[in-house]
């Protein structure tokens, strides 16, 4: 779920950009270091980023009939880890704004914060936690992807609520309003994305073990492979 170009008041757009920037810079530093040590990772990362962009551009099978798209938040966090995901996510969001008119440049900071920072960290933490509790792998992936998606959606609702507090009931009322408006599309979408991520991860584990191991940036999948 993207916030459209220009929708946030300038102060909010600036604050969210300032909050997202350190994560993106840290991700860029990490990727830069990785690329210096292992230049061969560059093409692998580029291919993964291009894949993430395409995944978000393809239409998902939907229950309600509305057209919906995957966020790839959970999958990205599992494959690359949340810090690399902040940079890749920011690049993907730029491409989405410039090539698909999804999101925008002034709302990039807010969208990066929701989709490339909060979502991936939540998905990553839940996957770690679930694996530690010895949850079955598929269930852990499902719950992680689902919660990554839900966290993204709630963050976006929160960003909109802070920007447009309700005159009668304030930020809380506004948050309830935005969360309720998006719930009919976002809740089924989160479940679909959870199932989809399980399906993709299963496929990759079955057929792409070598490639996954080649990605030294894959802490979660390495842990998953080991677990």
């Amino acid at each position, binding site marked *: 779920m993207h916030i459209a170009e220009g929708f946030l008041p300038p102060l909010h757009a600036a604050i969210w950009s300032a909050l997202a920037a350190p994560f993106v810079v840290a991700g860029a530093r990490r990727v830069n270091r990785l*690329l210096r040590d292992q*230049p061969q990772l560059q*093409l692998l990362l*580029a291919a993964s980023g*291009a894949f993430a962009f395409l995944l978000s551009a393809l239409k998902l099978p939907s*229950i309600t009939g509305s057209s919906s798209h995957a966020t790839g938040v959970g999958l990205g966090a599992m494959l690359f880890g949340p810090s690399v995901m902040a940079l890749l996510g920011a690049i993907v969001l730029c491409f989405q704004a410039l090539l698909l008119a999804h999101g925008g440049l002034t709302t990039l900071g807010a969208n990066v914060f929701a989709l490339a920072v909060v979502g991936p960290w939540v998905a990553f933490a839940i996957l770690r936690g679930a694996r530690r509790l010895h949850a079955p792998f598929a269930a852990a992936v499902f719950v992680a992807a689902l919660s990554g998606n839900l966290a993204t959606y709630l963050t976006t609702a929160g960003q909109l609520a802070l920007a447009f507090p309700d005159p009668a009931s304030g930020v809380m009322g506004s948050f309830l309003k935005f969360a309720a408006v998006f719930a009919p599309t976002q809740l089924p979408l989160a479940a679909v994305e959870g199932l989809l991520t399980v399906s993709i991860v299963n*496929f990759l584990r079955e*057929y792409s073990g070598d490639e996954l191991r080649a990605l030294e940036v894959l802490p979660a999948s390495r842990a998953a492979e080991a677990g």
Partner: protein
Amino acid sequence: MRAIDRHAWTNRWRDWHPAEKLLPAFGLLLMALLLPPLTTAPLIVVVAGSALVWGAGVPARALLVFVAPPAAFLLLGAPFLALSLDLSAGPTLRFSPGGVALALSSTLRALAALSCLALVALTTPVADWASLLRRAGVPAGIIELLLLMYRLVFSFAERALTGQRAQAARLGYSRFGRGLRSFGLLAGNLFQRGLTKARALEIGLTARGYRGELPVLRAARPLCRSRLATAMLGVGLTGLAGGWLGRALS
């Protein structure tokens, strides 16, 4: 996606220095955000739209196709900003006059910003951002990653669409569960193929002495100061006109 990229590569301003297009567009965007939207936003939509259609020669249809989906989303969302939720005496929804003004100004501001985004996206290909990012101090490795990603997106997109069409022709999306499985297979396949392709590219490029940068010949595009000054003057005049209209109407 391909249409947007095609216009970015083929419009009349294609050979201009990217700064000549991006600085005025960002100037307009900044004004769309900072100036009162009720009077300035419609002016910005008109200025950005005419610059695109008459200046850059991008078909009006392409502009509409770019703007329509997010604009529809904005217009559908506007009534929810106008509604106010009162929790004090049980949750009740009512229209509030303040909310209506807020909905109107936010929607207008977003529409103006959207037309500035169209001005950027339809005149400047993503590859042209590289020189600006380099000047902004972004590390070369990251810029090269961005450019590689941009190139790979289009080579993968073809495969993704063909794959999805083939699956649909075999009734792969006839039922929800089947659709989900098909999509998972497609995505997994795409990722696997993408990684294989990346590895093949890496071996091929390393054999040719690749050191993390693909040098390509670019046509020299010197910055034309007079063109930039004219464009910025236009942006300034739009801002002044917006401010003047605001004072005249209030």
